[in-house]
C-alpha cells in the first residue's frame, strides 16, 4: 500500500516537474536581437550602454581598451583637422610634404578637382579662415608625424593638441565642418577634456566610454539576463564592407534593433569622406541609413521579424536642427525647421518604408548618454 502511494506521488511529482521545466525553458529561451544600422549610427554605443546597465559593466581591461580608443580618436581627429586645413588652403604639409603623403602622380588631378569645386563654393576669405597660423607649424608637424593612432598621449602631445584646439581659430572653423570630413561629434568633448584624458592615471568613466567612437569590425555577441529573459545581442560593424557579413547572422533572429542616427542627415558617410567640397545633399548618412533599412526590410528571412527602430543622438539633433534643415536628406519635407516636427517626419518616413503591414514595428528614442528616454 505504502509503495503504491509513493509511486503515484512520484508520477505527479514528475509531471509537475516537467511542467515547471517546460515553462522555465520557454521563459529562459534566449532571444536573439540583432543590432543593425549604417556606419556610425550608434550600434556599439547602444551595446556598451546595455553592457553597463544589464551586463556586468566594463572591467579594468576593457577600460584600458577604451582608453586607447579614446586616445586614438583624439590623435586621429586632430590629424584629420590639420590635414584638411592644409589641403583647403593648399598649404604644404610641414616636414613630410613629399614622400609619405603624396606619393602618387594623381595628386594633381585631385587638386584640380578639389580647387574647382572649392572655387565654386568658397571665396578667398572663406578659405582664409582655415589658414593655420605660422606659430602652430611646430605643433602640426609634431602631430602629423605620429604614426599609428594607437600611441598613448604623451605630455608633449597633450600640449600641442590643447594649443591647437584652444588657440587656433582655423582648427575650430574646420571642426564646424566635421560633418563633411568624418570627425565624430564627441571629439570636441575629448579635446576640451584633453588634460584629464592625457593624465597617466586616467581611466575612462561611463560617459567617456559611451562617447568613444570606434569602428566595429566583424561581430560581437553578448548575453544579457534581464529579469527572467535571456537576450543574446549581436553587435556588428556598419560600414559597407561590414554589411556584407550581416547575412551570416540572420538566422533565428527574434527582433532587429535598427539604429539610426538623427543627426546624420548632413554627415558624409565614413566610406565617402573626402574633403570640404563634399555635397551633403547628394550623399549623406541619412540616405545611407534609409537605403540600408530598406534593404534589411526586404530580406526574406525578416518578413515576420519584429523591428525596433532606435533613433539615436536626439540631444545632438536638438542643437543641429537650429542650424541645418533636414531637407538635406528629405527634400519633400515642408514643415518648420524645428525638432519635433522634423523628428516626426523622419520616424514616419522610416515606418512608411515597411511594406509588410503585419510586421511589428516599434519606435524608441535615446540620447547619447541619457538612457532610453521615451519620447512618446
Amino acid at each position: 500500500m505504502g509503495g503504491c502511494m509513493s509511486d503515484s506521488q512520484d508520477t505527479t511529482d514528475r509531471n509537475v516537474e516537467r511542467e515547471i521545466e517546460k515553462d522555465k525553458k520557454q521563459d529562459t529561451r534566449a532571444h536573439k536581437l540583432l543590432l543593425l544600422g549604417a556606419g556610425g549610427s550608434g550600434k556599439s554605443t547602444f551595446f556598451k550602454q546595455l553592457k553597463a546597465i544589464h551586463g556586468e559593466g566594463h572591467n579594468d581591461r576593457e577600460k584600458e581598451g577604451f582608453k586607447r580608443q579614446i586616445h586614438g580618436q583624439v590623435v586621429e581627429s586632430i590629424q584629420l583637422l590639420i590635414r584638411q586645413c592644409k589641403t583647403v588652403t593648399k598649404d604644404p604639409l610641414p616636414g613630410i610634404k613629399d614622400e609619405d603623403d603624396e606619393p602618387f602622380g594623381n595628386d594633381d588631378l585631385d587638386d584640380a578637382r578639389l580647387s574647382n569645386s572649392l572655387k565654386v563654393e568658397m571665396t578667398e576669405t572663406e578659405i582664409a579662415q582655415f589658414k593655420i597660423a605660422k606659430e602652430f607649424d611646430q605643433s602640426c608637424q609634431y602631430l602629423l608625424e605620429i604614426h599609428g593612432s594607437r600611441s598613448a598621449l604623451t605630455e608633449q602631445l597633450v600640449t600641442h593638441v590643447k594649443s591647437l584646439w584652444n588657440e587656433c581659430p582655423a582648427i575650430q572653423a574646420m571642426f564646424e565642418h566635421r560633418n563633411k570630413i568624418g570627425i565624430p561629434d564627441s571629439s570636441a568633448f575629448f579635446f576640451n577634456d584633453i588634460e584629464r584624458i592625457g593624465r597617466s592615471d586616467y581611466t575612462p568613466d561611463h560617459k567617456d566610454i559611451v562617447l568613444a567612437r570606434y569602428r566595429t569590425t566583424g561581430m560581437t555577441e553578448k548575453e544579457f539576463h534581464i529579469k527572467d529573459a535571456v537576450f543574446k545581442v549581436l553587435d556588428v560593424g556598419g560600414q559597407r564592407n561590414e554589411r556584407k557579413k550581416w547575412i551570416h547572422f540572420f538566422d533565428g533572429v527574434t527582433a532587429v534593433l535598427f539604429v539610426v542616427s538623427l543627426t546624420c542627415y548632413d554627415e558624409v558617410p565614413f566610406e565617402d569622406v573626402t574633403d570640404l567640397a563634399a555635397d551633403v545633399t547628394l550623399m549623406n548618412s541619412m540616405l545611407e541609413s534609409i537605403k540600408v533599412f530598406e534593404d534589411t526590410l526586404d530580406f526574406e528571412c525578416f518578413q515576420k521579424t519584429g523591428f525596433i527602430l532606435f533613433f539615436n543622438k536626439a540631444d545632438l539633433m536638438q542643437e543641429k536642427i537650429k542650424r541645418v534643415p533636414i531637407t538635406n536628406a528629405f527634400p519633400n519635407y515642408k514643415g518648420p525647421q524645428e525638432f519635433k516636427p522634423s523628428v516626426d517626419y523622419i520616424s514616419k518616413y522610416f515606418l512608411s518604408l515597411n511594406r509588410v503591414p503585419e510586421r511589428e514595428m516599434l519606435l524608441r528614442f535615446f540620447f547619447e548618454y541619457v538612457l532610453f528616454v521615451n519620447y512618446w
Partner: protein
Amino acid sequence: GEIVMTYVSIPVGIALLVLNTIFCWTLASIALYWLHEANKLRWLPVIGNRYYIMAFWTNICLLLASYTHFFFVFLFFVLFWICEIDNDDNVLYAIGYTYRIKTTFRYYNTHYNIALSQGRWVACLNQNALRIGDYGQMQWFVRTSNKNTLGSPTWMFSHICLPFFVFVLILLELAPIISDFVSRAASIIIFAMYVITVAILWMKMPAYVDYIHLKREERTLLFWCLFQLVSYIVYTITLTIDSKDRYFPYLVYVCIFNICFAMFDCGYIVTSTRQVLVWNDLVSILHDYKKARRVASIESSEKSTQHSLSVRYEQSRKRKAKILLTKLDHTFNQNHDQVHDNAGEHVVISNETAAMSDASSRALTLRQILSQKRTLEVFIQFAFGEFAHDNILGIIELTQFKEMMSKKQPGSEDRPSLITLPSDIVKSQIVFDDAKTDLEKFQMLVEKFILNNATFCLNIPYEQRAKLIAAYENRQPASEEMVTIFDDCIIELFDLIGDCFSRFRTTDMYIQLCNTNS
C-alpha cells in the same frame, strides 16, 4: 619442511588477506566515489570532449575488476586455501586497449579541428598551400574518406578494434597452454606496445590548442600505465624465479602485488575523474553547489541541477579568467615600472611575485600573437568566429607584399617593418608568384582587398581607399612607392583588430597560449 612453512602461518595469512582486501576495496571505493562525482558533470564540454563514454566504461571495467578480483582472491584463499589464481591478464590487456583507442581519437580530433580551422583561411591566401607541406599533411585529417574510416569511432571499432581484440584475446587464452610465463610475457608485450603508441601520440599532440587539460590527463595516465607495466613485469619475473614458492608462499606474492594493482586501478580512475575535475576547477563548484543545496534543501531534478551547475561553471570560468588577466596585467605594468625603479624593492619579492612576474613574461601582446605561427592561427580561428578575419588576412598578405618589395629595394631594408609575421606562415599566392610583375601583384591585391566589390573588402577610410584605387587605375606607382603603399592600410587594420583582440584576451584559448608559450 618448506610446505609446512607455507601452512604454519594460517592466521597470519588470513589477517594478511583481510587487510589486503580492506585496503584494495577502500581504494576502489574512493575511485567509485569520484567516478560518481565526475558523472554528474559529464555534460560539460570539458568532460564530454574527452571521449567520456569510453573513459567511463574503462573505469567501470577497472572498478569491477578491482572489486571482483580482490573479492575472489579473498574467497578462493579462504575456501580453497591453496587454489591457484591467476591475476587477470585480460583485464590488463583490455585497459591498455581502450586507453590507446581513446588517445588515438583524441589525437585525431585535435588535428581534425586544427585542419578544419586552417582549411577556412589558408586557401584565402594561397589555394595551393593546402596541398603541400605542413598544411597539406593536416588535410589528411579532414578528408572525407579518412573521416569516415580511421576518424570514425564506429568504423574503427567494427573494422579494426573488435576483430583484433578478439584475435589477441584468443591468443592470450591459448598461451597459458604453453606456459604461464609465455602468457604473461605476451600480455606485457602487448600492453607495452600500447603504452608506447600512446606515448608517441601524446608527444605529438599539440598542447597549445588543448583548453581542457587533455594532454595533462594523458601524461598522468601514461605514468600509471608505466607503473602497472613495471609492477606486472616484476610480478612475472618473481613468479618465474620462485615458481615453486620456495621463499614465500604464493599468497604473500599475490597480496603484495595486489596492492600495486589496486593502486593502479585507483590511480587510473581518480586521474580520469577527480584530477580532471581539479584541473578544470570543477571540484569547488560541485562542493559549493552541494552546500547551497543542503542549505536550501531543494529536491531538484537532473535538469535543474545541470542548469544551476552550468551557470556556476560559467561564472567561475569568467572569474578565473578575470583574475588571471588582471594578474598578468598587474605584473606587466609592474615590470615596466621596475625598469625605472631602483632595485631596493627586489629584496622583498615574495614567491608569489616571482611566480607572477614569470606569468607576465607570458602575457602575449597583439604583436606577439601575430609573430608566431601557432598563436596567429589560433587568433585567426577566433577572428573567424567574430567575422573579423578579413582584417588579419589583409595584414598577412599586405605585409608579405611589403616585405617582398622592400627586399627588392636595397635602401629600405633598414626601415623597421610595421608588423613581424612568422616566417613559416602560409605564403600568399599573389605575392610569391614569380611569373607576375610587381604592378600585377599590386593590382591583384587591390582587387582582393580594396575595391568596393572586393572579396575581402577592408574597412578603411575613403582617403586611403581612393589613394589606392587611383594608383590602381593609373597603373603607374613606381617600385619604390610599392614598399610603403599599403602602410597606412596595415596600420589601420592593426587598429581595427585591436577591439577583437581585447575580447580574444578573455578566452580560454588566449590563456592556454600564454601558458604554453615559453
